[in-house]
């Protein structure tokens, strides 16, 4: 029997193919190598050197990953028996995640030292989460998507509980673990049903297997519904948003900053890849599901944000509302819809990460200072931070000439163009509501305080990251063409999408 088996399985995986496959996933490989190096060095280095060295390795690995991703532009194809792909859509997200990782390291280093938990594990987990995000971006199979999702989630569960003496941080970790586990189970069950209905996990093959009878295939529709629920959990869209404010509030501030952008972008990469690329023939079905989720998110997020007194919670609800806006672009579909989604996620990276990064700088040695009153007179304590926080808030609210305005413009234009006018009208109305709570933050920033209030010191690396985010928030709003060109190049061309 052994002889028969050996004859059946003559090895067909050559060294050339292995090398070519590895090149296609080189952005992920660079991150993973940095992760392994940081982990091993942590064991041999003296304790004082561990934090700075692992931070340096993390940045080097992420820069290498960024370069590797840029080299793949227009040169990617599928790899590893089609489990991974390096098309421009994937490369766009790889670049986004590498930049996010670098910004996160810049912001968190001084914070970790101040709160006395500067340990190499933080960077190992940060790299693992980044690798997971990139795996999702480069996934061409439901299996790869799920593994990337779990890699990202498990790293984030631990990161949100990283402040081990902080009761709130521990609570956030447990809540996130339980809710995230539920969401993953939903996604997995949905994927299993889709596999059962189509007989394949490869996303292009799923698209091909759809026929006229697919819209009445109960297995397939149930699979779409379950995957949609799981994905909505991950982008923190209503009515599956309840974990978001608690986890954002409890997790250490740099972790909140990282995951508020990272999970959202990764989950949208997942949604576009699975729904728009894998199930184009059923766009009517999943678009209806997502339209409900989008409308609910915009209403719940914006109305709940009004009553918040914690900036973390306020930004959490704002993030729920923002997920609703981005879903408009996904539902609209087509090349313009997808390009608007990519553009908005990049815009969200600079403006939302910038806002959270400023809250990171505000934190004290005992914990995060995230009451809205902690922002009082920020502009007098540190003019740069005060002005930039104002810029980020205006950008999130969608005021011209910020990148947030251009992002919303592209999303809503795509929505109207593809016939989802009612959703766009709701989105615009809710954006008006959002102005109220974003302005509340701005008013606190510009409220005069006692002269005795001490000035705020800004760590160099964090300051650089915040200023860069602020400059980009304005510059990309005035000259959006460069980024939008990249977003258009990254959009996956799919015919026959949308309602219009």
């Amino acid at each position, binding site marked *: 029997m052994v002889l028969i*088996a050996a004859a059946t399985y003559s090895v067909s995986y050559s060294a050339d193919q292995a090398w070519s*496959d590895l090149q296609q996933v080189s952005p992920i490989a660079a991150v993973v190598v940095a992760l392994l190096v940081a982990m091993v060095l942590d064991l041999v280095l003296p304790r004082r050197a561990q934090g700075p060295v692992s931070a340096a390795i993390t940045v080097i690995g992420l820069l290498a990953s960024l370069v590797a991703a840029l080299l793949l532009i227009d040169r990617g194809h599928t*790899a590893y*028996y089609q489990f991974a792909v390096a098309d421009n859509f994937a490369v766009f997200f790889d670049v986004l995640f590498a930049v996010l990782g670098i910004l996160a390291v810049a912001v968190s280093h001084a914070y970790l030292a101040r709160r006395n938990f500067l*340990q190499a594990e933080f960077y190992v987990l940060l790299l*693992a989460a980044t690798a997971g995000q990139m795996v999702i971006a480069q996934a061409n199979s439901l299996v790869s998507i799920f*593994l990337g999702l779990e*890699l990202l989630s*498990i790293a984030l569960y631990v990161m949100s509980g990283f402040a081990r*003496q902080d009761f709130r941080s521990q609570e956030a970790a447990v809540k996130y673990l339980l809710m995230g586990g539920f969401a993953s189970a939903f996604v997995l069950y949905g994927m299993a049903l889709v596999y059962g209905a189509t007989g394949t996990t490869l996303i292009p093959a799923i698209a091909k297997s759809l026929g006229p009878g697919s819209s009445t295939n109960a297995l397939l529709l149930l699979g779409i519904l379950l995957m949609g629920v799981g994905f909505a959990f991950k982008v923190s869209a209503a009515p599956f948003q309840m974990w978001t404010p608690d986890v954002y509030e409890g997790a250490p501030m740099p972790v909140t900053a990282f995951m508020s952008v990272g999970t959202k972008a990764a989950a949208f990469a997942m949604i576009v890849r699975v729904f728009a690329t894998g199930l184009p023939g059923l766009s009517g079905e999943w678009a209806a599901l997502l339209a409900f989720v989008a409308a609910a998110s915009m209403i719940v997020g914006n109305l709940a944000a009004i009553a918040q007194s914690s900036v973390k919670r306020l930004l959490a609800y704002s993030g729920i509302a923002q997920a609703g806006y981005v879903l408009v672009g996904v539902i609209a579909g087509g090349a313009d819809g997808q390009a608007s989604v990519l553009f908005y996620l990049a815009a969200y990276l600079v403006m939302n990460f910038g806002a959270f990064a400023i809250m990171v700088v505000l934190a004290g040695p005992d914990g995060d200072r995230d009451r809205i009153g902690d922002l009082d007179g920020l502009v007098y304590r540190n003019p740069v931070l005060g002005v930039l926080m104002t810029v980020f808030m205006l950008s999130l609210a969608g005021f011209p000439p910020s990148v947030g305005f251009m992002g919303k413009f592209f999303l809503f234009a795509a929505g109207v163009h593809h016939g989802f006018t009612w959703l766009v009208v709701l989105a615009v109305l809710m954006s008006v509501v959002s102005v109220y709570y974003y302005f509340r933050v701005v008013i606190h920033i510009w409220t005069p305080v006692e002269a005795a209030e001490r000035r705020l010191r800004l760590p160099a690396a964090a300051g650089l990251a915040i200023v860069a985010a602020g400059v980009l928030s304005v510059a990309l709003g005035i000259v959006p063409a460069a980024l939008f060109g990249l977003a258009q190049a990254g959009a996956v061309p799919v015919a026959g999408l949308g309602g219009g």
Partner: protein
Amino acid sequence: MATFIFLVAAAFCIAGAVGIVLFRDAIRSVLSLVAVMLALSSLYLMLSAQFIFAVQVIVYSGAVMVLFLFVIALMGPVREQPSTRLRFQGLLAVIVAGSFAGLVVAMLGGVRYHAPDKGAVLSTFGSVESIAYGLFTTYLYPFELTSLLLLVAAVGAIYMSRRERP
């Protein structure tokens, strides 16, 4: 016959899954999970995936479940209480013992079982060789990702459970 076995296994699976959720006693939930795992393993066997069947029984029903029970027994205030015994246990024992006795009688009587379908290549499908071949060629990427996932989970678990360094 195959449909009948499937229905029985599926019924056990669902009953066990409901039991996991409904039992208040953690030990009973875990034992229900064992029932689910065993029922699943019989489903794997029906799909001619012998290797997965064996792994399912040894790793999940065996090792993982014993660990679960250990953890619950060590952590939780679980006490043996006479009132918590299943009321229909006696009846259940009769049914199980009866069917086992029937099997023994049938075996001694030289009964012939249904032979495997001619078309299925049982010697290769689901065997160790075919799984190893798949893992290192077609499924290399998911395989490597899984190993990375387990590594990261280990790092996270060690960080969370480590004693505070002075």
